[in-house]
């Protein structure tokens, strides 16, 4: 190798490093103002499940549009949004780290997926930044750090009571089908406990890898076993439709086998895509846009005005909405000066009686306690909707109850 070539390359390298450093400096130049509270939002804005991230994002944006001025005088809120592109806990952790170190956010939110939220929560323990996770459902998330709360739901909340209810319907055997990651394991365990403790038997269970596209082999087996009821969980959105269509293809929806599960499996915005295959499916959840309480009616009106008459807000959007409500309330309570520990103390006793989903609050464990509604998919005015037909009172995360240290 000729020496001049080596020198040339070395000089190039030095130059490259200097240029790189300059680029870094440019990127890092964000003017810091006195009373601007920066909130880091980590959601999924691209990839297969971008639809869910978009729902949460719209909930956030709508809240800021309608209530964004409800702040102490001189205080502004700046949202810094980052894309975790899906279930990528390592990326989510790094994004959170950069938001805290580089952008100096004082509050983190988003937390769409349980694995991502777990990774970010672990970070907040050391970084001491309050984290309002919105839709992550795994029970362990709020145990990762004293600086995490959530405003969505937990898998145990939406699965355990369903198990009890199913047994009470007289069904003796059940098959469970869940997506193969954290929240799936939670819902499987929760339903199993509720069902078996009330007298039922689980005759089979399967966990479907997240990236699967062909569900038929798995469902064929279920059909062959022929249980009375099938408990299903998937993360909702387009996957819910894929599941429902596969159930239809294999003939389960038209048979005597009952399909039940947490509200994700009949995601409201996907119901039109699922079509009649979803009729009659019973789910347990904390929010349906078909609810008739006044706070919801107002919310839907505002939503449709902003996003179009065809657009439907789902429980994802409401989680985003309530999350922002909690953050703004915390800011107001502290007069614009965010102290991490004071924020957490406030959030742990926070409540919102006027949420579109009904009264909700956050308990000492950091989980939401709220009403859970049993719903059935029915046709109303030519549309498919989840109609609430029974209410289970204000409950927190059952898992925490069973696992009190």
């Amino acid at each position, binding site marked *: 190798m000729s*020496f*001049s*070539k080596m*020198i*040339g*390359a*070395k000089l*190039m*390298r*030095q130059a*490259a*490093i*200097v240029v*790189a*450093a300059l*680029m*870094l*400096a440019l*990127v*890092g130049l964000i003017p810091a103002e006195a009373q601007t509270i920066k909130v880091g939002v980590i959601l999924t*804005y*691209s990839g297969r499940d971008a639809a869910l991230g978009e729902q949460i994002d719209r909930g956030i944006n709508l809240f800021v549009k309608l209530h964004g001025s409800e702040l102490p005088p001189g205080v502004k809120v700046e949202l810094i949004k*980052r*894309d975790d*592109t899906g*279930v*990528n*806990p*390592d*990326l989510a*952790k*790094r994004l959170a*780290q*950069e938001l*805290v*170190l*580089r952008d100096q956010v004082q509050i983190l939110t988003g937390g769409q997926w*349980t*694995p991502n939220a*777990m*990774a970010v929560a*672990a*970070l907040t323990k*050391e*970084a001491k930044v309050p984290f309002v996770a919105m839709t992550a459902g795994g029970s362990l998330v709020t145990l990762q750090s004293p600086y995490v709360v959530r405003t969505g739901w937990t898998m145990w909340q939406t699965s355990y009571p369903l198990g009890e209810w199913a047994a009470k319907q007289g069904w003796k055997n059940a098959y469970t089908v869940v997506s*193969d*990651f*954290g929240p799936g394991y939670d819902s499987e365990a929760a339903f199993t406990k509720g069902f078996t403790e009330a007298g039922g038997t689980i005759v089979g269970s399967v966990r479907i*890898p*997240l990236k699967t596209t062909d569900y038929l082999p798995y469902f064929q087996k279920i059909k062959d076993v022929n249980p009375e009821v099938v408990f299903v969980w998937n993360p909702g959105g387009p996957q819910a439709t894929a599941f429902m269509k596969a159930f239809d293809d294999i003939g389960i929806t038209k048979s005597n086998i009952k399909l039940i599960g947490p509200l994700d499996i009949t995601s409201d915005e996907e119901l039109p895509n699922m079509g009649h295959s979803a009729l009659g499916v019973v789910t347990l959840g904390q929010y349906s846009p078909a609810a008739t309480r006044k706070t919801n009616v107002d919310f839907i009106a505002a939503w449709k005005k902003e996003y179009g008459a065809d657009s439907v807000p789902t429980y994802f959007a409401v989680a985003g909405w309530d999350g922002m409500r909690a953050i703004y309330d915390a800011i107001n309570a502290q007069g614009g000066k965010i102290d991490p520990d004071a924020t957490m103390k406030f959030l742990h006793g926070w409540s919102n009686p006027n949420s579109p989903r009904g009264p909700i609050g956050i308990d000492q464990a950091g989980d939401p306690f709220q009403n859970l509604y049993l719903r059935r998919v029915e046709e109303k005015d030519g549309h498919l909707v989840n109609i609430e037909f029974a209410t289970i009172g204000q409950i927190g995360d059952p898992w925490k109850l069973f696992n009190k240290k």
Partner: protein
Amino acid sequence: MTTVSASPTVHEVVPSAIIRLLKLLPWLLVAALPLALPGYEPLATQVFVMILFALSLDLLVGYAGIVTLGHAGLFGMGGYTAGIFSVHGITDPIATAVCAMILAAVTGLMFGAAMLRTKGLTLLMLTMASAFLLYEIANKATGLTGGEDGLQGVSFTPVLGLFAFDFRGKTAFFYSLAALFIVFIFVRALINSPFGWSLRGIRENDARMVAIGCPIMQRRIIVYVISSALAGLAGALQAQSTQFVALYSLSFELSGNILIMLILGGSGRLYGAFIGVPAFMFAQDLLAKQDPANWYLGQGIILIALVMLAPGGILGIAERVIDVIKRRRVRNGHRDS
């Protein structure tokens, strides 16, 4: 009669001690980064880890002529080894890094011995399949690896008992930089050794190498094992600096990205990794924040442009520029005399 006298080379003018100091200069500059730009340590650490990874890939792609789309398999192997060890109680960073290297090397040996008999598309597919295989195994072995959720609870004791890993990332920064420096010295020595030259020979014309009695299969396996060990080290460093391991470290996406980063800088040129990786990662940092679509577009256009116009990467362009300058100087030299 004219005599052409070459202008004195730098080597003859400046004493060699100063040259050696100059070569260290970039390293020292980079080590001072935390002073200039606090808050960027995590990103810089990521860059160091990726450069190490790209160096290991360069041994294969640039020097031995083995194109692999599955190198992340070895990276992830190292990462999960370090992570799983730490979850089960063995938390010393250097010890786990060594174990990661060993396990990655063994994996490379197993797969390499089977795969390296083939060439071309078949070899490419095999490298992909091997990485996917490891990915799926890790995906399913959730008890061991955490599957999609990632490996939780990874933590390491302070390096050498003195420097603790904190979320600010300073320890990780210097630790990875040091590792990168050591590996750089090693790789440079390797490619300038007779072994390294034989690799180039195998890449250019293996039939001829066989004719002069070079055991090419053995050499290819050896370089594959070394490369795997280094990739495993990079993976372990990643696990240690981020205190987390996720399936991404075994993914096809990562294999593709690291190949692009290397080619961007220029393969087969030792420093290619050092240029391509920062360029790629900073461009990604800038563009992807606005809108991921912009980043894909930019990346794709760069790739196509690279292939059609500048196959040697950035360093290739630099070389061509220097060549032109040199030729012009010689021509002028002729005219003057």
